[in-house]
């Protein structure tokens, strides 16, 4: 049972344009959402997060939007750069999953390719 879904395995955009990566979830108990970026042969790197009490969080070129009623979040990268080419994972945290220990549930990832 996939609680965090990234339905697009891949996305290709032109340099300078906007990249939009989408993520859906089914568990209404999730209260924190995170995006990770992964380059080949490296571990995932934390990118940006958002609390369920917010609908938007921005950090430089990266903005995450959360629509709780639709159980949907998205990551916007503007402008996209070739160095952004990587696999992006959406992850969610359920505070009830283990007391105060924040276990993350990951989606399958979306491969973003930014073409020069």
């Amino acid at each position: 049972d996939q609680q965090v879904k990234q339905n697009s395995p891949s996305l290709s955009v032109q340099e300078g344009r906007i990249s939009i990566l989408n993520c859906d979830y089914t568990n209404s108990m999730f209260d924190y959402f995170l995006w990770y970026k992964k380059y080949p042969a490296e571990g995932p790197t934390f990118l940006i997060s958002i609390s369920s009490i917010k609908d938007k969080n921005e950090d430089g070129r990266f903005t995450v939007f959360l629509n709780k009623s639709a159980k949907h979040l998205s990551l916007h990268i503007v402008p996209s750069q070739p160095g952004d080419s990587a696999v992006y994972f959406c992850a969610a945290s359920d505070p009830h999953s283990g007391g105060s220990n924040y276990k993350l549930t990951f989606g399958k990832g979306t491969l973003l390719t930014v073409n020069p």
Partner: protein
Amino acid sequence: EAGVAQSPRYKIIEKRQSVAFWCNPISGHATLYWYQQILGQGPKLLIQFQNNGVVDDSQLPKDRFSAERLKGVDSTLKIQPAKLEDSAVYLCASSLNRQGYGYTFGSGTRLTVV
């Protein structure tokens, strides 16, 4: 700050053999995680430690997988005996266990079982 260290980077073994992976978390991070990432899928939690105690090992195949974290610092993950379906990247991560803070992952160990 030094990152999460993992070794080896790559390992190829035959099925039914045993293998062990090592992880050294970021200094001061009390929480340590082992994740399994099969090709084309997202990381799946195998086990979570808080200091040297196990918090969650519900998805660890305990008939063949074992993990320990002695003295609340380094950790080892062992598979014995390995199966073909264990071929994956094994990621270690550590965190300060604060909501929204995010984990810091190591580079992982790529295991191929032939």
